């Protein structure tokens, strides 16, 4: 980690971490848990002027491990009364053929957040309106994948978190 204490209104730090995480389940299978963040880099900075405080944070990290779905099939139930397999909707349930546990990773995740704060005073109180925007450039970091093997078009659908999330508020300290 490299840190710059405030100098001429600028402060910030650059941090990098490397970690390895493994777990073993009850059957003895060793796998990488979803919490594993192999590489993580964060760059944070703020600039202060007499009336404004500008902040920025850029982060990039290894994607989250996930388990790939390789296919689906119907599991029919056995009917001991009819001595046969049940093919109705009530008797069959869809099951998933899975790849190695957490054997895949989402793509590299990255995001830039910016904020701007107006420093002001209202008598003895301090009023600071602010605007911050998360994920400024709309990085589509997948939060989850779903797999669709039913029908003629097979596809993986990745759903990302908020693409662009502005927030606005006023802090009033007295």
């Amino acid at each position, binding site marked *: 980690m490299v840190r710059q204490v405030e100098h001429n209104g600028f402060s910030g730090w650059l941090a990098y971490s490397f970690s390895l995480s493994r777990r073993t389940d009850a059957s003895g299978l060793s796998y990488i848990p979803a919490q594993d963040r192999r590489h993580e880099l964060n760059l944070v900075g703020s600039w202060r002027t007499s009336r404004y405080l500008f902040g920025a944070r850029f982060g990039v990290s290894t994607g989250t491990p996930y388990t790939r779905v390789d296919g689906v099939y*119907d599991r029919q139930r056995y*009917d001991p009364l009819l*001595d046969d*397999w049940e093919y109705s909707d009530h008797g069959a349930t869809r*099951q998933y053929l*899975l790849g190695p546990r957490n054997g895949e990773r989402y793509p590299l995740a990255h995001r830039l957040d910016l904020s701007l704060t107006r420093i002001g005073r209202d008598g003895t109180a301090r009023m600071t309106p602010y605007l911050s925007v998360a994920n400024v450039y709309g990085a589509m970091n997948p939060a989850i994948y779903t797999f669709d093997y039913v029908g003629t078009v097979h596809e*993986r659908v990745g759903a990302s978190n908020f693409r662009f999330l502005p927030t606005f508020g006023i802090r009033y300290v007295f």
Partner: protein
Amino acid sequence: MSSRATWALLALSLTGGCLDHTPLGPGADVVLVQAVLNPTRSVQHIEVRRSGTDLTGGVPVHGATVTLEAPDGAVHVASEVPSPSDPQGTANFVGRYDVAVGALTVGQPYHLRVVTADGTIAEGDAIVPATPPPQLMTERRFDPVKDTLRFAWPRATGARAYEVRLIPQPDSAGIVYTDPYGQVYYSGYTAPDFLAWVDTSVTIAGTARHHNGPLFQPGVRYVVIVSAVDDHYYDYFAHESDPYSATPLPSSLRGGAGVFGAIVPIVWQSIVVEGSTPGL
């Protein structure tokens, strides 16, 4: 900032979650085998399919060599047979193979081996639990307001659990199910049957609810079957696969997916629920 730009910004932020579609090839091509040994039957049914198609039901596997090796070493070869659901009685929609092995030996392993035409081998072993003679009970009337269904049975050697099935019979008055909204379903539909995994007894109140409606539908005849099941049957049917927690469905087969297990019905009773179904 203009009001239009403000609303556009707000809408963009609220609908920011995006979907990314990536085409995939065909699903994994796996041999799926479903087979259970039922000692109350003289013929055992084995179903052989393949995954990896557009149909989740898979495609039937024809021309496979399916053998069942008994504990005494005798090898019985299964025959491919037409599906019971085929109106012509000739097509094998589900990859069905039947094998007649006579009386099954309890407590000792049977070996199932499936060899498909392309040489894929799926095999597994199963042991039939040693159960006491089944309790075959006479039909009884059941008042869901006053009555409670109670059964108990001795523990069976080799049984992992006991499956309780409450199966509505479509022969009861032509109707079989009233949904929570009062919609009556006539023959051709079946009420959702009830299934529970228990130990050596079960108690079901007449007022129990199932699928958001009464479990015991008035006027319907049900068959209650309690069966002792082995480890493989229980693991396969009492669990669900879940891609989000990376939980696969347990399979007792090597070289394929599915089940080769054993089930032995030990309690059997028909009940007729008093009352009549609305709409008749």
